[in-house]
């Protein structure tokens, strides 16, 4: 069965091709069905492979060679897939959640003229994501990595009639490219020092002595890869694109910006666990960045009024939690949280989509309220999601978050307290959102009120499935105090090198669990009290800073975007706009005379071009003659 792994990305690719080629002629429903069936087929194959990997007879990772990709002298890179516990788990998450979101989209996007195109993009995304997790070397991972970035760009900008949306898409793409740069450099460092990009060969050489390297190299490679991860997984400093990316259709936010693509960075680091274990400095950086992201974005989420933005900042914050887990070496725990987060965050996004659908496109929670009466299913499933993310015992989020906190505590109590503060804020903003949306009085217009209705089955069924998963998803990884057997960890053990947080004393663990639960409950009650009488007066002081997202975008604008634009403009003038005249004119009237003179040289065109050539030649000659020798 593992030899058939190429089928998994093949189905979405076919779906993309069919939908992409015939998007003008295809009936809308047909496009949705093709898209969903393609992902369903992949899901079925993934399930089969998952069970095969899970069975005892499965021996180690299987590498399936498809064809030779690059063959150049010493370097041979095949196009091959690697099947092991880690990739098969991600396959399930991607295709499973992906399928539910496809089904949801058939209803959600029904009124959109570009529905077939939308499904084509979505399938292309699933294809790229599968490539990312299936590849057996960093190059294929990178191809998938860029592919998902491109699809995210296309889907964020899907409703391109709004100018802000295309800007958001551009921002997402540029930020991702900056991160990709780090990834690429890391990849090149590996290539330079080890002559291979394949996971198995690279990790195999890591510990061995014949590649004489210092720990510094490990750290550098690990940091470069992590820069890539910060871009894709929206960590500080490259996180501002994710909230803006909410411009895309809601199912896209659920699939790409919550469940799958943004977790690619976690996948990458978990995959490279063998490397990170040798790079303590890089791990510390990961942990610190993760903590900072978790706290800052959670604090921003507290004061947001756009339902999707709250969820977006919450996603950033949860990703921060995952990075904390990675940073303390608990890779499986991070993967565990990826899984549970995929369930409950997809649920929350889809729930918010259902709300937005009912409200006729309104996303401001100040204009909602009391929706619970009209939308029972959405309310209940949303509540389950909120409980799960807040870490209420018995739901999936509790188990994974608790494991992260325990691991952090074992590593460094300081990290634990920060994490706890993050969890506290999470519970508050989620329930603030929940209460403002579903309870109290309706604050929208009369017309919206009239239109309120529960969504159709294609929307509610995925909600219900995800709600069930959000409840039971955590039972694959019970904490040590409750069970001796942590099935997820046992499953991932062959694929992921790991630190086991369960070495804590039982008493300590009970205490940690109790503390986080207690805090969550208190915050929920606090949120309930605060939202009883909603007060939307303009914010002042810290709240205003939070509402404006700590002014991070403005900061970037001032220190990066503007200087680059200015430099570009300057060069443009200086080099090409026959422009020393322009430059000199700008200095003032006093130099107009000389401006006139200088302009004569520049407007000489051919003459000035040859002039630049000669000057350049002279300088390079000086460099070549007197510098080198």
């Amino acid at each position: 069965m593992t030899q058939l792994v190429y089928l998994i990305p093949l189905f979405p690719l076919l779906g993309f091709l069919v939908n992409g080629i015939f998007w003008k002629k295809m009936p809308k429903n047909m496009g949705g069905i093709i898209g969903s069936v393609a992902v369903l087929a992949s899901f079925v194959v993934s399930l089969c492979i998952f069970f095969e990997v899970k069975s005892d007879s499965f021996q180690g990772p299987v590498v399936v060679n498809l064809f030779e990709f690059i063959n150049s002298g010493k370097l041979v890179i095949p196009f091959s897939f690697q099947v092991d516990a880690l990739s098969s788990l991600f396959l399930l998450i991607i295709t499973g959640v992906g399928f539910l979101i496809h089904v949801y989209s058939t209803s959600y996007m029904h009124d959109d003229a570009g529905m077939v195109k939308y499904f084509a993009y979505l399938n292309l995304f699933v294809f790229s994501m599968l490539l990312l997790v299936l590849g057996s070397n960093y190059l294929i991972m990178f191809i998938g990595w860029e592919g998902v970035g491109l699809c995210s760009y296309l889907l964020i900008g899907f409703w391109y009639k709004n100018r802000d949306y295309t800007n958001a898409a551009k921002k997402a793409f540029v930020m991702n490219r900056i991160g990709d740069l780090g990834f690429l450099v890391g990849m090149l460092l590996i290539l330079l020092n080890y002559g291979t990009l394949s996971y198995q060969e690279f990790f195999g050489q890591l510990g061995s002595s014949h590649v004489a390297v210092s720990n510094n190299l490990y750290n550098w490679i690990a940091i470069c890869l992590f820069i890539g991860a910060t871009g894709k997984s929206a960590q500080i400093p490259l996180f501002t694109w994710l909230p803006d990316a909410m411009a895309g259709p809601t199912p896209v936010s659920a699939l790409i910006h919550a469940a799958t693509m943004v977790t690619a960075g976690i996948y990458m680091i978990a995959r490279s666990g063998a490397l990170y274990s040798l790079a303590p400095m890089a791990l510390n950086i990961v942990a610190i960045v993760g903590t900072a992201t978790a706290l800052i974005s959670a604090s921003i989420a507290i004061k947001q009024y756009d339902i999707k933005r709250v969820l977006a900042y919450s996603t950033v914050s949860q990703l921060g939690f995952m990075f904390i887990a990675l940073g303390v070496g608990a890779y499986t725990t991070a993967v565990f949280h990826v899984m549970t987060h995929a369930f409950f965050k997809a649920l929350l996004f889809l729930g918010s989509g259902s709300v937005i659908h009912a409200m006729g496109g309104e996303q401001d929670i100040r204009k909602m309220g009391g929706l619970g009466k009209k939308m029972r299913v959405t309310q209940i499933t949303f509540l389950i999601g909120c409980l799960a993310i807040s870490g209420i015992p018995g739901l999936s989020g509790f188990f994974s978050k608790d494991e992260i906190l325990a691991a952090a505590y074992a590593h460094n109590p300081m990290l634990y307290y920060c994490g706890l503060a993050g969890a506290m804020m999470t519970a508050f903003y989620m329930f603030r959102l929940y209460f403002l949306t579903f309870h109290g009085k309706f604050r929208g217009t009369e017309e919206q009120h009239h239109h309120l209705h529960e969504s159709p089955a294609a929307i509610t069924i995925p909600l219900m499935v995800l709600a069930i998963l959000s409840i039971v998803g955590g039972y694959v990884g019970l904490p040590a105090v409750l069970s001796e057997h942590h099935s997820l960890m046992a499953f991932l053990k062959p694929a992921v090198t790991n630190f086991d947080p369960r070495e804590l004393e039982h008493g300590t663990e009970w205490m940690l669990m109790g503390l986080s639960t207690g805090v969550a409950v208190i915050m929920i009650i606090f949120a309930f009290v605060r939202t009883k009488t909603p007060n939307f007066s303009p914010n002042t002081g810290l709240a205003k800073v939070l509402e404006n997202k700590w002014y991070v975008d403005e900061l970037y604008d001032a220190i990066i975007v503007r200087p680059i634009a200015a430099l570009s403009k300057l060069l443009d003038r200086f080099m090409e706009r026959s422009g020393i005249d322009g430059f000199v004119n700008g200095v003032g009237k006093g130099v107009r005379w000389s401006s006139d003179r200088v302009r004569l040289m520049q407007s000489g065109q051919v003459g000035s071009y040859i002039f630049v050539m000669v000057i350049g030649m002279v300088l390079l000659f000086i460099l070549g003659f007197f510098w080198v020798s």
Partner: protein
Amino acid sequence: MKAIIAATIFGILLMFASILMKDKKAMANLAIVFMAALFGVTIWELIITPVGSSQAYYNNMLNISYYGLLFNMLMTGCSLLYALLASKEIQKVGVHVAEYFALIFFILCGVFILSGYQNLLMLFIGIEIMSIPQYILAGSDKKNLKSSEASLKYFLMGAFSTGILLMGITLLYGATGSFNIAGLSFLQSNTIGPMAIAGILFVMMALAFKVSAAPMHMWTPDVYDGAPTPFTAYMSTIVKAAAFIAFLHLFQFSFGNVSNTWLLVLSVITALTLFIGNITAVFQQSVKRMLAYSSIAQAGFMLFAVLASNTMAAQHGMIIYAVAYSVGTIGIFSVLMKIKDNTYDGFNGLAQKEPLLAFVATIFLLSLAGIPLTGGFMAKYYVVMAAVQQGHLMWLVIFALLMAAISVYYYFRVIIAMYFKQGNAELSSPVTGGDKLMLIITAILVILLGIAPQLFLINI
């Protein structure tokens, strides 16, 4: 050698055919048939040559290797693609259709010489055979003052660079007493003196001019902008690739021995080229001009192959880059030729009006930007990998990647205009079924290069 003779003969035949045939379209079709025949000749020559062998001709004037023949074959293939895509536009430029095509055949003759020269005289003649037709083609749209201006500018600067090249060749001769670049007495690391270094630097500058590398790039935007678009497409692709193969050839066979003398200078040139090309492309308002600057930026990447000329990956990378860049650029230019207004605004809303045109244009732009699964990515990957293997160039590689990230901005501006903006993109001529077919084939080639680059590196 067969290809050189065939290209010349086809060119001459076309000149005579223009006496007999007055119909432009028939002329163009005849030229396409000839081009296909030339493609056949290059394939035949490739097949009968044993893998990895090389054959010297006429007292080592030429030394045609399998690698060079493969390059010839691929470039002729690209020329065929170009002829098919652009023949209608070429007919619009002026009345001398047969002459234009004859010049293109002569340029190809120069290309074939440059892929296998072994004597500096052949390098000089090859470059001139390639350049003089370009001066003429640039000025062929006589109704348009811009075209004449481009031609004159190109001519003056080109002649200037010829002087530089000749000075370099003379100094190299003075230092070694030989014109044979693979000769035993030519440039050995233990005997190299200041005169040889001066020669190397002069030749490097002149070749930098031909591949439009900074600081010798100044002609590029003006000439590419002013020349008739179909000829810009040819000048910026096949001709440039040939200049690069000449560059690589020289550095691989002779200058490679003494790389410590020029590596720093060439790295600085590469960095400058990348910087100027990418940064200035950002601020352009005309897509045609943006493509001119982007061709400077792409040249910066191709210089990586020259920098690492002694590695296998560099030689593979050069072929992949030449093909990927040529095919992608020919593709995007043939889309550009269909658009009436060459500014970014001219592309607004193209996706609504001509979805196929917009789609293939997107693929070409993605390839130029180096997004994975397109040829452009593979090409960049190969050359960067070669530079990494060479060592000592990590700073340049990182800088190049940064610049590649910037390049996404201006390539994507076109995509945004096509897909995300409202507008009524006007076409200069209707897109026929044949055009569509050719564009789809071109796009498939771009993707194929990205998925299976090995297909294009037959046996090397």
